[in-house]
């Protein structure tokens, strides 16, 4: 029996969004191990199945830069000014730690799921 007040596609969408939020940061940091500008970064993420819109990506890049995890510079390429981003040394350390954490979470989750299926 359910109480019928919650659930449905809206809740699922919100949960998926929450799940994606943390993963996106790791994905952006991982992509920026090689220098990229905003559009190519967005494209690379979308090609790998993590589409992200402009309104989410650019504030995220600013935040990560303010936190010292990224460095950026405006540079001309193909006669156009583009802002290129790449990981800072602190960002590289943080990414390594985040990936370790990701592995731990993944292992724990797999363990929980295996126990639940027994």
């Amino acid at each position: 029996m359910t109480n019928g007040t919650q659930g449905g596609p809206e809740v699922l969408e919100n949960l998926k969004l929450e799940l994606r939020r943390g993963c996106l940061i790791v994905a952006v940091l991982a992509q920026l191990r090689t220098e990229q500008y905003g559009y190519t970064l967005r494209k690379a993420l979308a090609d790998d199945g993590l589409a992200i819109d402009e309104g989410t990506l650019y504030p995220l890049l600013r935040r990560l830069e303010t936190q010292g995890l990224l460095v950026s510079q405006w540079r001309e390429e193909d006669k156009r000014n583009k802002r290129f981003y790449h990981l800072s040394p602190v960002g590289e350390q943080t990414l390594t730690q985040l990936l370790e954490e990701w592995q731990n979470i993944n292992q724990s989750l797999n363990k929980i799921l295996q126990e639940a299926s027994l």
Partner: protein
Amino acid sequence: MTNPSSRNMELIDRYLQAVRFWLPRTHRQEDLLAELGEDLRSQIDDKENELGHPLDKAEMSEILKRCGSPMMVAGRLGPQRHLIGPALFPIYEFVLKMVLFWILVPVFIFIVGPVNVANSGGNWGLAAANTLGNLWSGLFIAAGIVTLVFAVIERTNAHLGAECKWDPLKLPPVRREERKPSLLKALCELGFGFFGLIWLLLLPQYPVLILGPAAAFLKAGPMLHTFYLPIVLLSIAALLRSAITLARPQWTWFPPLSQLLHTVLTLIVLNYMIQAIGKTPSAYPFVVLQDAVRESRKYFQLAGIVNVSILVSVASAWLGVCIAAVVQTWQFMRYLRKRTSGAQRTASIGAQ
């Protein structure tokens, strides 16, 4: 004819101008717009390479529509803006409720309202309208001040210090479940109420019961005669209340509600009494001298002292009843809230 490429660039500039309008004017504004513009131009380049021709109006429009309306894009690009953040919001909500519903509303009902009634010269409608008008603006002003204070705390991060200082050992003890009304308490109330009513009914014939030896030279004044019946009725109501509490202990809603109603009725009677005292021409509204000692100066002074004492008692009673009304309103609301949350809990357990 305009070159499609320059027309597309112009459309992007118009789009960025519209986004700029909604973006807060910070040092980051131009930086963000430049980056967004570059993203859009790269999208156009990619699309043109894919299609092999410059984009037409419909294709351009599709790219910009996918990006979102200027207002929405500015909202997402701009800084996160909230007056009071999630960390502070629960306490803000608590304080706001406290100030508006547990302080301001009772103050208006039990203090400002009666004062307005007393000053309106018996025009209840005007007094009620004035009180409601004052309450309405008071609520807005108080809500504004509370919100402003919390917004300042949010901006200055003053709450972070308090967050670190809390001590788990100082948490309040677990509250016990609400018990049914006590049988002994209801019995005592019924007994005392009964004897109180008898005492009250005997007073007109035996004033010595209240005045003691002073009954030899004092008798009830006009005010006591006028308000004798309402006081008796209030006593009967209290007696009935105790009897019903005793007979229907399962009516857990009855004691707090009836207590509150009784208090409100008492307050109304006291208000009328205070108004009547203000209007009476007599300096001795409660007790007057017996005819036999009317000329005695000594008893005259004594009657004055007794009247002033009763007046102070009435004023104190009014204040006490006001406080009781606030407390009982709070208790009744708490009872209702518990009942509602209890019902919801039962429903959710049943639904599982």
